[in-house]
């Protein structure tokens, strides 16, 4: 299940919902990404996130389908926030239920790495002195390519 939303999310509630994925689930891996005070710029005060409605959901559906074909994925949950976010706010949540930990870890990391380089989201850093659209990092592309 995929949610693109401006509102915050509750990781504890998401975890409880993932626990309801059936008696075959033996492992849950979750990841949360937060707004940090430095990125391309230092003294970042917040972020603005934009996306391409429709395409975003379609791309993430495809990533979940790929993860499900490569690993045991009983349920996957992805939440990504858009709009204006302050320091330390939650940006993204990925949760995966599997029979075993190795599949849960791998699928969770794959989804996060692939999302960063293929889902149409763009981040803008906001500082006291101005705004800056974040540049895609070669290291992120390398991490995503490593799953191919």
């Amino acid at each position, binding site marked *: 299940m995929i949610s693109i939303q401006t509102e915050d999310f509750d990781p504890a509630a998401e975890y409880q919902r993932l626990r309801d994925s059936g008696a075959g689930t033996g492992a849950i891996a979750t990841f949360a990404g937060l707004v940090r005070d430095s990125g391309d710029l230092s003294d970042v005060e917040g972020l603005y996130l*934009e996306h391409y409605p429709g395409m975003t959901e379609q791309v993430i559906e495809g990533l979940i389908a790929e993860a499900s074909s490569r690993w045991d994925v009983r349920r996957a949950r992805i939440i*990504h926030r858009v709009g204006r976010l302050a320091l330390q706010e939650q*940006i993204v949540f990925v949760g995966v239920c599997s029979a075993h930990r190795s599949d849960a870890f791998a699928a969770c990391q794959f989804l996060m790495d692939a999302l*960063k*380089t293929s889902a149409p*989201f763009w981040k803008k850093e906001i500082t006291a002195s101005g705004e800056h*659209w974040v540049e*895609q990092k070669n290291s992120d592309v390398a991490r995503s390519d490593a799953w191919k």
Partner: protein
Amino acid sequence: MTADTITIRFFARLREELNTEQLTLPAQPGLTTGAILASLAERGGAWTQLQGEQPVMIAVNQTMAKLSTEVRAGDEVAFFPPVTGG
């Protein structure tokens, strides 16, 4: 949008620098996304970056596409910078 046009959308830094969220162009036989970028770049100013060194990502009907992808009447073409979510 009418049946014989193509919708062009811009996102993020491109949307801001071009000061354009969306425009429509007439459809033509054999038109590619690369040809659209080349003709838009001829507008000069910020538009020249569509043919510049910074990569421009392309989607046709919300699926990633290439410069050689053909575009037909009714299609939605999007141009945007490399993505930076997560």
